């Protein structure tokens, strides 16, 4: 078996989510090749070559791949992917954007968001916002799948010594163009990789209160900050902080849900956390049904007290 893993990166650093995909690839078994498609991405290829379990790195370095435009990268993946038994990518917005396009170019069905490898052709994935787990078998010649990072422990960033091979193939569809991006800067750990996540919902009341109440708690715990869809829609925090079926999927050691009722949509994004704490004034809140510990009270007094005592 030969597996092609699509590296996720920003042309400088290999994104940690790629390490979880390599872990899933190891469960399938076989030779693992990592494709780095980017512009000025030599450093990323070198990092990928160090990753444990990787036997080869392909570097496609061209301006056409600078911003991970799906039209160009998917064409490259489909071209290179023909010789592999599996093509895997991260379940991030980048992976979700590119991989289905590559699968259709190869005329194969794709499996989204796998959480377990049963065999080389059989996988588990959540459906209905995580309320059911489907075991799916692919009868395609090439298995194409995205991998839910939180379901696989990342492989080590060192220990590998793969050769880096340049790919000269340039796919430029010329039908799309990068215009601009607005990346939210944060000193906190990345949400999907954090050990502790502190999330706020509609109950925090306002954007100002979100920061007044939750920032000190996140600071003290070295936690990433998340939010429910209600808090994002109300404009308290930017959308990239949304945890849920339609936002990010997290599975930290500790998830603290503050002022979050616990709609199905939100639970889909966090119910695999090891320990869940809910702080809510509503005793009947659905979040309490998945929480390990819940405290009924006013978050404006409870959270500062918690900060002072940990």
């Amino acid at each position, binding site marked *: 078996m030969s597996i092609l893993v699509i590296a996720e990166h920003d042309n400088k650093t290999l994104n940690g989510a790629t390490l979880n995909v390599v872990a899933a690839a190891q469960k399938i078994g076989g030779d693992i090749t990592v494709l780095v498609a980017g512009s000025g991405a030599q450093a990323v290829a070198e990092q990928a070559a160090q990753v444990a379990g990787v036997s080869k790195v392909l570097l496609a370095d061209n301006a056409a791949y600078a911003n991970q*435009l*799906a*039209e160009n990268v998917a064409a490259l993946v489909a071209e290179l992917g023909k010789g592999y038994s599996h093509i895997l990518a991260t379940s*991030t*917005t*980048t992976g979700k*954007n*590119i*991989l*289905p*396009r590559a*699968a*259709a*170019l190869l005329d*194969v*069905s*794709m499996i*989204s968001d796998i959480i377990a490898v049963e065999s080389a052709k059989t996988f588990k994935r*959540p*459906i*209905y*916002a995580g309320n*059911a*787990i*489907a*075991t*799916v*078998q*692919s*009868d*395609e010649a090439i298995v194409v799948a995205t991998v839910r990072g939180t379901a696989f422990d990342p492989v080590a960033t060192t220990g590998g010594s793969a050769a880096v091979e340049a790919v000269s193939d340039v796919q430029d569809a010329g*039908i799309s*163009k*990068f*215009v*601009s*991006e*607005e*990346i*939210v800067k944060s000193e906190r750990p990345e949400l999907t990789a954090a050990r502790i996540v502190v999330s706020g919902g509609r109950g925090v009341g306002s954007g100002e209160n979100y920061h007044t109440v939750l920032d000190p708690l996140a600071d003290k715990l070295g936690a990433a900050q998340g939010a429910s869809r209600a808090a*994002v*829609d109300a404009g308290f925090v930017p*959308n*990239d902080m949304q945890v849920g079926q*339609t936002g*990010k999927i997290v599975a930290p*050691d*500790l998830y603290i849900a503050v002022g979050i009722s616990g709609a*199905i949509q939100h639970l889909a994004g966090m119910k695999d956390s090891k320990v*869940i704490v809910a702080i809510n004034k509503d005793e009947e809140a659905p979040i*309490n049904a*998945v929480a*390990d*510990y*819940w*405290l009924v009270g006013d978050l404006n007094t*409870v959270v500062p*007290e*918690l900060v002072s*005592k940990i």
Partner: protein
Amino acid sequence: MKALVAVKRVVDANVKVRVKPDNSGVDLTNVKMSINPFCEIAVEEAVRLKEKGTVSEIVVVSIGPKEAQEQIRSSMALGADRGILVETTDEIGALEVAKILKGIVEQEKPELILLGKQAIDDDSNQVGQMLGALLGAGQGTFASVVTVNGDKVQVTREVDGGLQTVELNTPAIITTDLRLNEPRYAALPNIMKARKKPLDVKSPADYGVSATTKLKTVKVEPPAERKAGVQVKSVDELVEKLKNEAKVI
């Protein structure tokens, strides 16, 4: 320009689904069905573009059982002009859906093709991207802002780090994210009018698509249950539990 919108009939977003005891799937008998929330946003966006004068005609298409006519009619009540139902009772995969849509696009020749970013039942998030590949068209996935400038479309996309804006040639595929717009409610007179709008019924074979999917669902299980938690009475008790029992801080 012409807009084509694809909508899917799915279990209502507020329903907590149950897995069938024989693990063959999810029990959908007597469960409330609705238009997929992301598809509703796609319809709303097309209607807004029509109200601005950018779009002249909106064609809404659904692939599924006879009952999916309800979702086409409700899209018409929101402002779509006519509908196409590709009727099938088979469980059909994303690739096959994209192939049928490709056939419809080739007949209808829309400049804008709007879809939801994912259906809340299979959670695949694939069809728009696959359709882009089959048509050789550009894709603006997870759109939160759509601006049409002549024969180009600028799409602001919700990506993991924040937002990214791309410019696409038409015909372009747009898949909607939740923050693109807030769908309106259909007024009763519009619901009455929608009943008279044209709706064609087709079959997958009309578009040369026969296979249902090469992904076989072996079984469907409920997720692992979390063990019941406890209510703590004070912050002190919570801190004590987190430190000594859960050992996470």
